[in-house]
């Protein structure tokens, strides 16, 4: 099985890459290639020019401050194995354990995952949960895209054709937050049928100060449950509050496809949300942190 013919380009700098992206007709960026190369092999995708950004300098790395910035070409593997990130924001590694397999994580990148925008992709869910800002560049200059404005349709990111993702900034909850990432998939490493990510941060009085819940696999993009999050804030996340939040998760719109019906996805969303919130509550430092 072969991809259709294309020309291959390997820029060394961002400026070169952006020049190519702007001037070459029918061009696509090659990041980790773990979805794109498969699509090219299967001839689901055709390109005239492939711009391989694997050797562009300065696109990989993890910088931890008040927020966390991850370079677009940082391999999933390196994100998963970062001890500093695991200590600060353990949910990222927990989610990445569900992403593909050793081989695909060795190559796959966070920027590639966000650019591909599979609706059930765990990293897309994490970006949505953590109020990500996506940093993009083109010859026209840099631009920041809020994750809420990013999805434009099914596998269609809110990027112009000459724009390249260069990094993503995640906004972590307060230290001591509880977290959980749970997923139902047909096989380990598959895209989720439904996945749920949640973080709960408690104030010194033991009340929820910051609740975040995201559902993946329900529609074209991960779904934040603002109503359920608002319901949990100010509670102790006791079982009744968790049940009410899970009930909200279970009545969201969901798609039907070959993997699962809408009804089944809703059922999974409710069950997984309850379990995830319960786990996140147990992991949180109650009343010990501001």
């Amino acid at each position, binding site marked *: *099985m*072969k*991809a*259709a*013919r*294309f*020309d*291959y380009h*390997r820029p060394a700098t961002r400026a070169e890459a952006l020049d190519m992206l702007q001037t070459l007709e029918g061009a696509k960026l*090659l990041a980790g*290639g*773990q979805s794109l*190369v*498969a699509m*090219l*092999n*299967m001839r689901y995708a055709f390109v005239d020019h*492939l711009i*391989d950004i*694997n050797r562009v300098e300065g696109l990989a790395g993890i910088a931890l401050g008040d927020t966390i910035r991850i370079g677009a070409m940082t391999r999933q*593997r390196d994100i998963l194995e970062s001890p500093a990130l695991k200590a600060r924001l353990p949910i990222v590694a927990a989610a990445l354990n569900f992403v*593909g*397999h*050793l*081989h*695909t994580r*060795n*190559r796959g990148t966070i920027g590639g995952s966000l650019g591909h925008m599979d609706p059930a992709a765990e990293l897309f869910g994490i970006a949505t949960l953590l109020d990500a800002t996506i940093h993009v560049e083109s010859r026209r200059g840099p631009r920041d895209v809020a994750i809420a404005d990013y999805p434009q349709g099914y596998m269609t990111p809110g990027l112009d054709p000459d724009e390249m993702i260069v990094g993503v900034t995640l906004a972590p909850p307060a230290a001591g937050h509880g977290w959980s990432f749970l997923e139902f998939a047909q*096989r*380990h*490493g598959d895209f989720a049928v439904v996945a749920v990510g949640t973080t709960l941060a408690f104030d010194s009085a033991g009340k929820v100060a910051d609740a975040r819940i995201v559902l993946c696999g329900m529609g074209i993009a991960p779904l934040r449950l603002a109503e359920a999050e608002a319901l949990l804030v100010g509670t102790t996340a006791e079982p009744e509050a968790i049940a009410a939040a899970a009930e909200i998760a279970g009545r969201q719109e969901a798609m039907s496809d070959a993997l699962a019906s809408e009804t089944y996805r809703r059922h999974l969303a409710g069950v997984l949300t309850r379990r995830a919130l319960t786990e996140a509550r147990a992991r949180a430092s109650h009343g010990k942190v501001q």
Partner: protein
Amino acid sequence: MSAVSIRVTVNGTPFEREVEPRTHLADFLRHDLGLTGTHLGCEHGVCGACSVLVDGRAVRGCLMLAVQADGAEVTTVEGLAQVEQLNPLQEAFREFHALQCGFCTPGMLTTLMQLLEEHPEPSEEMLREELSGNLCRCTGYAGIIRAAMKAAPLLKAQRENAA
């Protein structure tokens, strides 16, 4: 649609070749270098049969273009054994009947080389989870897991001796 010149070291031997950009690494190894130990199953990144090591990391040979391996060190199943001497993992595969038809075996072996290097004391559960990315339809994985558990300390000792 011009060919690209690449230099790649495979199992310690340097090669220089012209490749079409669309040629993936597994096809390059098999067709251009004649290293047919790397097997191709699905050719779209699902089965893991074509797994090889690139700079020590397991990759799916069908999801990486040969041009991307320019300058890299690639290890295929042919590079695991010394002349006439299987490595401890291969030896354990034989001992525990960890293969039947053998189609998945090169991918299993290369994947396990990275896994066992990073986890010298693996749990069976971890191995089963990680090897879900390599499909075997003969063995039910039981022999493969036993072989990996047996080989883990032997490979560690081998690495320590080499160091």
